[in-house]
């Protein structure tokens, strides 16, 4: 496998962090380390963590900062190779047979014997199952990119186990075997990221091939940075208070804890509501941005005044 030089941005942990933050993704040392190692060991990175902490966004931001195309494969139950890797272009193949039927007389005109006809025909079979009739799906596309790419296999835990097995060849050797054609190797191996919400245990074979990165809820400081990057124009007072409130909320016993994406949405909402400071009334009015379950509303309702006080005092 030829290996073109990786971009400058991937050369060290610090440059990765810098590249990510230039497109608005506030990385942690752990995240950057994972990407750094992944790049050097050529291993896919399996990202786990609660929903909405920026797993998918990491891949998107990395692609953006490196100016690579992002190829995304959303997994679901029943996903198979014809949707993930490649499919034959049936229509085109059918059309081709029609043409072949018409032209076959001309082609075989001067072949006197059956053997000669077969010999001549066998040449056409190869054309039939060729790259021309191959429809690339995300995984094959990622292998075909002339310069690097970021391949995101999103929510791998939603797919079936057979699909996991299908991925193994791609993840360890960056190549795809199409039975009719042969093995297609990536000229420039993509940076592969897989995300999982842990709705089922992934197979050991897959885990073994991946680096494991767990992204949890951020510390207050990092969360503030993230919100500041994503919601420009928010005042420092409000920012500190709202992040403090969300951090407090995460310590409550809730069915669905608010994630970073919820914090960002909430910050935008508060900005729209022209709030300069948190107060219990505003929080109550906009809480539906943060909480997604009726039972969570009920659980938090009594605590709101407390949480707001804590957030505004500190």
């Amino acid at each position, binding site marked *: 496998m030829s290996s073109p030089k990786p971009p400058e941005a991937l050369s060290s*942990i610090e440059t990765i962090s810098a590249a990510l933050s230039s497109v608005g993704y506030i990385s942690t*040392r752990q995240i950057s380390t994972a990407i750094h*190692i992944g790049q050097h*060991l050529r291993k896919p990175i399996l990202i786990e963590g609660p929903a909405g902490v920026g797993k998918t966004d990491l891949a998107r931001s990395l692609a953006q900062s490196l100016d690579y195309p992002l190829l995304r494969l959303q997994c679901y139950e029943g996903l198979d190779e014809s949707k993930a890797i490649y499919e*034959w272009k049936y229509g085109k193949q059918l059309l081709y047979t029609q043409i072949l*039927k018409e032209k076959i007389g001309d082609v075989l005109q001067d072949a006197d014997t059956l053997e000669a006809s077969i010999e001549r025909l066998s040449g056409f079979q190869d054309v039939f199952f060729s790259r021309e009739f191959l429809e690339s799906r995300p995984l094959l596309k990622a292998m075909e990119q002339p310069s690097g790419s970021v391949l995101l296999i999103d929510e791998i835990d939603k797919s079936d*186990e057979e699909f996991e097995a299908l991925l193994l060849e791609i993840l360890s050797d960056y190549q795809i075997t199409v039975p009719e054609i042969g093995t297609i190797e990536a000229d420039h191996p993509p940076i592969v990221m897989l995300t999982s919400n842990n709705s089922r*245990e992934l197979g050991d074979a897959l885990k073994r091939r*991946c*680096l494991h990165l767990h992204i949890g809820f951020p510390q207050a400081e990092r969360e503030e940075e993230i919100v500041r990057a994503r919601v420009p124009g928010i005042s420092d007072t409000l920012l500190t208070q709202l992040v403090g409130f969300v951090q407090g909320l995460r310590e409550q016993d809730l069915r669905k804890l608010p994630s970073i994406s919820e914090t960002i949405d909430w910050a935008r909402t508060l900005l729209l509501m022209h709030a300069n400071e948190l107060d219990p009334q505003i929080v109550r009015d906009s809480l539906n941005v943060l909480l997604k379950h009726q039972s969570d509303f009920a659980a938090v309702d009594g605590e709101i005044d407390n949480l707001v006080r804590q957030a505004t005092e500190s």
Partner: protein
Amino acid sequence: MTEAIDATRAVGVTGYADRTILKDTLNIVLAKSEEESDIFSQMFDTYFAMPETRQKQSSDQDQEKDQETSSESPDFSARDGDDPNDVQATQSLMRLASQRSSEERMATLQRISDAVGVDDIRFASQRSYYSRQMMREMNVEALENLLKNRFEDGSEEAKSEADTLMKARSQLQSAVREYIDHRFEIFGRAATQTFLNDIVANREIGELDGRDLARMKVLIARMAKKLASQHSRRRRPRQRGMIDVPRTLRKNAGHGGVPFDLVLKRKRLDKPKVVAICDVSGSVSRYVRFLLMFLYSLNETIPRLNAYAFSSQLTDVSDWFDQMGFEPAMKRIIRDIGSGSTDYGQSLLDVKTQYWDQIDRRTSVIILGDGRSNQTDPRVDILAQIEQRAKRLIWLCPEDPRRWGTGDSCMLRYAPHCHSVAHCTSANDLAVALDQVLRAYD
């Protein structure tokens, strides 16, 4: 093995100068899940924190020792009657005991422990055995021989020398002890846990005490996870005879539409649906707790679970679990439902009249109870109807099979109408029974 190579390569990339980066690096390469990551983090700290903390401790000790040794008479001198070999060995031991740099001492201890095989330690009770072994390996005997000679002498000078020797001996002992404790944390702790888990899993639920219960909770969660992953593979067997026309056409487009290869329709498998009917009176309630804990830990694999509890009357308790969480719901069940006298007939009738539509041919019905119905009509006929209606009817009985049919037990009358009846006393028995239930859906 591959992980070890990867780890080495990864450390080669990031370097090991910065401990936090080293930790992150190894964590990313070695741990494969959040739990493993936690375990790794603990292990890393235990394993690598040692020299540092020890250095601190021993530097404190060293300072004390400095003062002590400076005020006291220097070491000891060889006397007549001392074996020259012993003297030599003791001198090196004294050096070891008073060593300033902990790294040197560590290296020596490591060498000795390798010779003894301390890293094979599995149980806490082995610690004293290994510390004796290490002391012997160090040749403490030599020091003890000298000590004996000093005691026999009895003069003032000999006494103070004996003191010094004793002190050195106890210093060595505590260093060895500390070293072994640390090794046990690394190599033994996990093994002990596994061993204890094994015992708890096989012990009768009725005999568990409070400490075991906590362990049991963790254990059940783990067993449930294992069971879930075993059954998560959704196999879609091909059904004979049914042709999938669109797929067949597409597949055979390459042959000019002539169907050479037939594509057959695939049958989707049902997701497991379980109705658990639990006797929560008196002695059986303990078993119910674990059965339900197990079932609720399986909620990924069993998305539809209805739990009913009864003693004299049947109550739907599924919502309690959803709303209150496991422990409070369990408490409420025991308090509100567990008090009546057991009536299997009435409870089965309640199933028939109120919850009959919950049972269909995709449902597995699990009944947990001892089948002792206080002389009331057992309504075997309804059980027979459930068997007809459900996919599986499984009876889990915590009572010894030899006692079935004695007194007011109706087990022998119920048994013929169940697809299977299992004597179920330990967590392992539960796991086997549930494995059977899930297998019906594979």
